[in-house]
């Protein structure tokens, strides 16, 4: 019985450690997806002249979950509700952000970006997208850095913390 409990503790703490590491791995990946999505948006704006709702729906189909959720909701809101772009964007951000591994830094970038969406001519819109991309780039570097530094540590820390707890309780 004692051994069974000890095993349970170690398993739980290992799982916690892996989950933390997973979030660290996920963040740069999702940032890359977000960047790819913005580049796709740029192409839709510059070459397709596609209105936002349609462009956003296209992007949602091309992007993997959970980032696609943002664009999917944005397209839906623009189509079905009588709101402004900024409101629709903020609402979609709030609804979808919790499901991603993304953090406050990129949320702010995306919020700022949303305020410029659809308000300008093509060239200005392109510049705004480039600006958002540059900011995301910075966040991505930081995320990769964090991943290299902490991901392995989080995993081993999980196992070791479990062991420590078991030893103390024995």
């Amino acid at each position, binding site marked *: 019985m004692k051994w069974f409990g000890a095993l349970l503790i170690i398993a739980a703490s290992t799982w916690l450690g892996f989950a933390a590491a997973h979030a660290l791995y996920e963040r740069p990946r999702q940032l890359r997806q977000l960047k790819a999505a913005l580049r796709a948006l740029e192409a839709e*704006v510059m070459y397709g*002249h596609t*209105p936002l709702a349609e462009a956003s729906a296209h992007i949602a189909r091309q992007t993997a979950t959970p980032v696609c959720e943002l664009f999917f909701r944005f397209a839906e809101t623009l189509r079905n509700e009588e709101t402004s772009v900024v409101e629709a964007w903020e609402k979609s951000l709030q609804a979808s952000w919790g499901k991603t591994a993304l953090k406050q830094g990129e949320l702010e970038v995306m919020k700022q970006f949303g305020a410029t969406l*659809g308000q300008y*001519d093509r060239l200005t*819109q392109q510049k705004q997208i480039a600006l958002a991309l540059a900011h995301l780039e910075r966040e991505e570097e930081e995320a990769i850095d964090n991943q290299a530094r902490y991901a392995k540590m989080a995993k081993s820390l999980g196992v070791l913390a479990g062991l420590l707890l078991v030893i103390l309780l024995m």
Partner: protein
Amino acid sequence: MEAVWGILPKTIAMAVQQLPSWRDGIEEIRIRVSRPLEVIANGTARLLPYEVTKEDGVQLLNKLSRYSIYAVEEELKRGFMTIEGGHRVGLAGKVITEGGKVKAIRDVASFNIRIAKEQVGIADPLIPYVYDGRWCHTMIIGSPQTGKTTLLRDVARLISSGTERIPAQKVAIVDERSEIAGCVKGIPQFSFGPRLDVLDACPKAEGMMMMIRSMSPDVIIVDEIGREEDSEAVLEAANAGVSVWTTVHGRSIKDVQQRPTLGSVMEQKVFERFIELTNIPHPGAIRRILDASGTVLYEQRTVVSR
């Protein structure tokens, strides 16, 4: 009209829809920021007791551009856009220029929604005059507001759908001002026959050549020829064996003959039929139909003298 109600801000749509019976006769809805709403119906203008707010303007532009100003850059440069149903929305406001040319309209303050009306069947009585084993090269002459484009639109419908005795023919419309076919995303919004192709928002002269080269039309339809290069393209098309239908501003054939830019076309007697339109007693009334030699084939009976 559904498309129009769809783009109008709720407040404005409500104000207009509260109107009594003449709602169906609406020709124009004019929306000017911080001024009263104006509606023109059945020829009379009425100001409604509703003052348009700035938010209404912003919302209307958002709806028109579907929240994407970058997608309507070209329309903002031209000063109008065509919405579903072929209705046209004219825009005015602060103009931004670049190198002396209009780049865009910013701060749009005036919207003029012109309700497009289809008059299916108005071209039918013309058939005996303009069909002679094949469709003749025809020029429709009329002053502004005499219904030239409306007639041309129905001619396109007639030729592309055919009649009991005349088979449908391939029709190409070069629609520089998006007025004949009223295309939205390249798809005509009015009822036409199946054998119809449209080059939307394309310069006439270039578009006519493109159509001849690529779409092998039997009939080409263009609106308002007037420039030198237009005449050249008309000559080219006529010599390629394509029937040409076009409209020209003017009161009668004499006015057209005096236009220097149309000189070559008139001299070579390309056009076989001339249809003169007048707005007496009503827009779209046909005053005379002449053939190339100037013989009158039809003349309006009730001549109203002023």
